[in-house]
């Protein structure tokens, strides 16, 4: 096991920086240099770290510092430098140059980027530095979301990768998913494909219920706690745009067109309506004088906010009831047999999600367990392979894909019938991710 006794965190006052630092100081027992723009901010990061893992015992081994005064000294004595500054080459590259000059040979350096090229960022380093440079994509909040995408690039050494993976898994308790250096890696590539295509459908069906309707169709019975558009609103439309633009510009797969940002997203971003963090985006909540809260949803046609509607779609009700009673295959049977355009949409997106997840095996990840882990641990969505089992196996799933006109991945064509397709069951009970 690789020994990591001292760690430097850059971006210590951000939610990801403080949360990751908390995990490293607590589970890893490491001394952590908490660096921010100024010492006051770093101190705030320490308190946030303590609050995130709920233990005062880590406070004493977290040392506040600033980039200007302390970066070189902290880096020089660290076994791991974890950089979590803003998500852009312009911010990360100059800092990498400073880290590269100060680091000792053998020190691991990693970034929390959710989409930038790890290979490009590694270029700031000498050969030893490139060998030890990684993407360690933690999810927010790090203590609760245990996924870590460990992103490698062509300059890495397999032995170092293995040792780092072991440390992240055994010491820090992360669910480690190994991914290649491709745009948005595994979790976001799959997750934002679905979210963005759902957003396009919301536009297409704007007259029939738009955003609210699509989130209703893609609600808990399809294997997620939160609707895809509610998720986009939660992460922020600006972040959503950055991720889908990056994928659109740098990939060319069968889902390429689905990564185009919908026009109404851009309109909302231009108006500063970025989602929940800015008080409104695809939805907004208004607090009335009597203290009651009312939820509104953006009307794509009119540009106004309408009261959030309630839907009464019989097959969804029936599927939800089945999930409530833990009859998951029964719920999927309801979805398979239902008629109407809403059911067609549900079937299309379930098929699309499985198809796209499995299609990335070979390019983004080496095994389907990695995409399954990314979605299960990172998004709390039912992993694609588990869906195959709930749908009744590979043949039934292929049938659904063919009806919905999405590509059938080779992995599924080659799968054996009558054998469980989902292989992470001992680590993650996929049933827990359906909501009735």
């Amino acid at each position, binding site marked *: 096991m690789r020994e990591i006794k001292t760690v430097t965190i850059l971006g210590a006052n951000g939610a990801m920086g403080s949360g990751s630092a908390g995990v490293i100081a607590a589970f890893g027992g490491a001394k952590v240099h908490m660096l921010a723009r100024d010492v006051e901010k770093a101190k705030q990061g320490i308190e946030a770290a303590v609050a995130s893992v709920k233990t005062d015992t880590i406070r004493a081994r977290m040392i506040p510092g600033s980039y200007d005064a302390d970066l070189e000294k902290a880096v020089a004595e660290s076994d791991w430098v974890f950089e979590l500054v803003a998500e852009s080459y312009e911010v990360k590259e100059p800092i990498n140059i400073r880290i590269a000059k100060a680091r000792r040979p053998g020190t691991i350096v990693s970034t929390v980027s959710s989409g930038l090229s790890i290979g490009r960022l590694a270029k700031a380093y000498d050969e030893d530095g490139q060998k030890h440079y990684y993407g360690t994509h933690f999810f927010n909040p790090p203590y609760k979301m245990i996924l870590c995408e460990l992103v490698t690039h062509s300059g890495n050494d397999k032995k170092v990768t293995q040792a780092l993976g072991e440390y992240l898994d055994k010491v820090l308790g992360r669910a480690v998913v190994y991914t290649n250096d491709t745009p948005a890696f595994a979790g976001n590539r799959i997750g934002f494909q679905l979210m963005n295509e759902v957003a396009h459908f919301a536009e297409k069906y704007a007259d029939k219920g738009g955003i609210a309707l699509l989130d209703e169709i893609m609600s808990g019975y399809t294997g997620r706690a939160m609707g895809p558009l509610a998720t986009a609103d939660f992460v922020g439309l600006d972040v959503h745009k950055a991720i889908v633009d990056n994928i659109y510009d740098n990939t060319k797969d069968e889902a390429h067109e689905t990564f185009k940002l919908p026009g109404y997203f851009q309109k909302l971003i231009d108006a500063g309506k970025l989602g929940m963090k800015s008080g409104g985006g695809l939805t907004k909540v208004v607090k009335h004088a009597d203290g009651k809260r009312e939820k509104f949803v953006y009307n794509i046609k009119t540009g106004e906010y309408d009261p959030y509607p309630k839907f009464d779609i019989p097959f969804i009700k029936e599927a939800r009831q089945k999930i*409530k009673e833990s009859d998951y295959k029964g719920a999927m049977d309801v979805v398979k047999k239902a008629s109407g355009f809403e059911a067609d949409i549900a079937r299309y997106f379930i098929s699309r999600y499985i198809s796209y997840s499995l299609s990335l095996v070979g390019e983004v990840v080496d095994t389907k367990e990695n995409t399954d882990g990314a979605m299960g641990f990172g998004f709390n969505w039912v992993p694609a392979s588990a869906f195959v089992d709930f749908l009744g196996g590979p043949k039934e799933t292929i049938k659904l894909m063919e009806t919905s006109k999405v590509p059938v991945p080779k992995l599924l064509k080659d799968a054996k019938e009558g054998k469980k397709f989902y292989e992470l069951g001992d680590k993650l009970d996929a049933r827990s991710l359906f*909501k*009735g």
Partner: protein
Amino acid sequence: MSEKVFVLGGEQTDFQRNWTKEGKTFMSMMREVLDDALEKVGISYDEIKRLNKENRVAVFVGNFDAEQYANQGHLGAFLTEVNPALFGVPGARYEAACASGSVALDAAITHIRAEDYDLAIVLGVEVMKTVSSSVGGDFLGTAAYYDKEAKGVQFPFPKLFGKLADVILERYELKEERFMDALAEISRINYANAKRNPKAQTRTWFMNKEHAMARGGDNNMAVGGRLCITDCSQVTDGAAVTLLASKSYAKDYAKKTGRKFDDIPRIKGWGHRVAPITFEAKKQESVGDKYILPWTRQTVKDAYKRADLDVKNIDVFETHDCFTSSEYAAISAFGISEPGKEHIAIEDGTIDFGGKKPINPSGGLIGVGHPVGASGVRMMLDLYKQVTNTAGDYQVKGAKNGLMLNIGGSATTNFVFILGK
């Protein structure tokens, strides 16, 4: 006794799950855990139908308080909702507070021993995340003498087991620092063991000795006298199933499933004693006794006697660590140490995962979680895993005999079972 009742295995739910948040109920939990258990053991619903025609199968449901947590009683009949194969199968619900799972096991064992049935399905279940922790704490108070010990008291049970810690400290004239360190070590061991158990509630939680020692403050609040959050098991939703069988059925089962009959573990001994219900009465009664919980010790002795075994024959223990103080007292009750010397067995690593007498390799109630009515059944399932060498990452090497202690109330209802090959 030891040639009468056999354990075929079973399954538990993931104790990390919050079924209310998932929009599911105790009924869905029963369905999932029973489906999983039958699949794991290799017994189909058709087989249950076949046995039921000859009145050879029965169900025993352990549950403490579904009336309050889920507004539902009559759980013995509820398995008929799980699967129509259970229509007509005799079933009842058994309650003895946190030992509800054990009283259900006891009833099942008794019926099989009496040759009434060939197969017993024992299902322990509790949903607890339906209410806030303070409301839940009040519900749990009914496991004590509610009017005298719990009415109007916030979190009555940590307080009762905090009193147990006080009595241990005073009666054995222990140094407080050493005793509290030993309790912290119990906590550390249980959390560390739970990390290896993929169904444990706390498997992703942070905990180490340093944190367990840092009692007080917002992050490790005092909840019962000397006891802080890290000394407590925490409520969770969960269910567990174990299947028990007669010798003839176990033999047929072994043949049908390609297992060796000699590999199927059997219940070798049991003990069941009830101590005075209030903690104060327990305390008064034990004055002058070597053991602070003499009825707990007696229950263990009864089980050893029935099994014709002693502590030296037991390779693994699952104990009721609802609080660190209850596990502390159990160490001498098992005979691992003399009463008053429990801290030595803790300090020298005897009860640790790799020690001579490992306690709670599963993580125990502190690590796995404590869905009250399911805990006894879960313990039996864990003993089964250990003695059949199927516990995966938390397997105790070479375990042949295991002992479980499940208690209800403030060590009021005491149940012990010994399982081995």
